[in-house]
């Protein structure tokens, strides 16, 4: 029987929202405080949802040790206590939480073979969060 499993992680990173396609004034108008040239940071909370048949031998969709080590290696070690703008994937793309959410989904979809990746949900603060299901509609 198919079940969905969600695991929550935390990391902290800094970013600056600035688009090279906009003028200085437009950047300030669009991004407001987030356009501060020195950047600012957030404590992000990341929720990774995977699905699959529950293995009768283990009772599991996938082993949490495998999921934790993949997320640690591929996401947390890459972004925790880093400046997102210095990462190659955000050299051109603005590191909004929308784009970060999509990036994390794409990384995990490539690197986690043990269950089907359903969604990545990313909280930037307690007041806002973003969710990406690889372009599909959310099921819940």
């Amino acid at each position: 029987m198919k079940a969905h499993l969600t695991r929550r992680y935390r990391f902290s990173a800094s970013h600056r929202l600035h688009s090279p396609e906009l003028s200085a004034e437009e950047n300030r108008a669009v991004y407001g405080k987030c356009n501060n040239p020195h950047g600012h940071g957030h404590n992000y909370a990341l929720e990774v949802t995977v699905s699959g048949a529950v293995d009768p031998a283990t009772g599991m969709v996938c082993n949490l040790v495998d999921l934790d080590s993949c997320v640690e290696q591929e996401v947390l070690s890459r972004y925790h206590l880093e400046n997102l703008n210095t990462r190659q994937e955000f050299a051109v793309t603005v590191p909004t939480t929308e784009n970060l959410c999509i990036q994390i989904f794409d990384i995990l979809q490539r690197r986690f073979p043990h269950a089907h990746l359903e969604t990545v949900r990313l909280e930037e603060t307690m007041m806002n969060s973003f969710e990406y299901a690889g372009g599909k509609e959310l099921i819940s």
Partner: protein
Amino acid sequence: MVYLTRKAEFAASHYYHNPDFSPEENQRLFGKCNNPNGHGHNYTLEVTVKGEVDPRSGFVVDLKQLKEVMHREVLDAMDHRFLNKEVPEFFQKIPTTENLAIAIWQRLDLKLQKAKLHRVRVYETQDLFVDFYGEE
């Protein structure tokens, strides 16, 4: 269609062990969760039902009935219990959060009257939860 979610909490202990595996294999697969003396969690259960709003009552479902069924079928059976030893579903099956969500769905699905189950979500900790939407 309107969705309604009711929350409940219960505390229970469990351990993970498959008698078909060797002790070494159980240890490798389940780690600390393989300790036969068990360990416990404060579980949070979220039951979501769906339906049309009854024009007379304004309800999707009688919350009192939902609460009673959740108490009788889940909390009375599982709260402050050792799942492996006291809940029949887990005499054979391993009481992972996945299997717990499935067992709770099956218990509720049999007993709910008007409400149609949409999702059973079980939090084992704040950082781990399982959703079950029924058999596809």
